[in-house]
């Protein structure tokens, strides 16, 4: 029973941020970071142009980004990835719209 309660608690803990406002919560400022960091070198693609799995692959391999080392500080990288995935063509913030 206690184990069940803990599991439920953990589930609520992790589920809550993801369900805020009926969508996947993206860190504040992530969109601005995306525009600034990606836009420094190339045209900023809208999140809708890729699927979640594609954005994840791109953001997991920034050290070889179109042949360029585009490594970012981890927090910036994670914020941008969250924004892109949340709003991807098959992302949680897109699907039900």
């Amino acid at each position, binding site marked *: 029973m206690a184990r069940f309660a803990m599991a439920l608690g953990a589930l609520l803990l992790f589920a809550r941020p993801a369900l805020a406002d009926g969508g996947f919560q993206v860190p504040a400022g992530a969109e601005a970071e995306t525009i600034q960091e990606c836009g420094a070198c*190339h045209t900023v693609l809208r999140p809708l142009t890729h699927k979640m799995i594609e954005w994840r692959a791109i953001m997991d391999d920034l050290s070889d980004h179109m042949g360029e080392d585009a490594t970012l500080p981890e927090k910036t990288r994670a914020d941008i990835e969250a924004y892109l995935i949340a709003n991807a063509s098959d992302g949680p913030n897109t699907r039900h719209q």
Partner: protein
Amino acid sequence: MKLRVALAVAFIASTAAAASTNPARDAILAALMTQAKQEDPTFTSFSADRGAALWLADHTGGKVETPSCTTCHTKDPTAWGQTRALKPIAPMAVSRTPDRFTDPAKVDKWFVRNCKTVLGRLCTAVEKGDVITYLSGK
């Protein structure tokens, strides 16, 4: 007329002063100087001439598409450059882009990235200080 000339002179003087005495840029250069002296205790001062030579030279070791800083930034530091993906880059000359070299995180990020791309290695503190000194005088 006299007033207009006086204002123009004052404006030029103030921008020149701003270019050479920005406290944030001075702090970045001071930190690089500390590192440079750790690398070589006899090191005394950064050189705009050495910075220009590094900036304008063709290098090997990096990506073949980008042998020089000038591949993207052009040979004129007061001109706009362009990334390989065609995004404009504001002039590197401090006279044209006064906030150049005033944000330590931005300076670090771009020296790491671009030294790897052009030279295939990280730049030394001396190289970074020389380049900043060169572009601060442009």
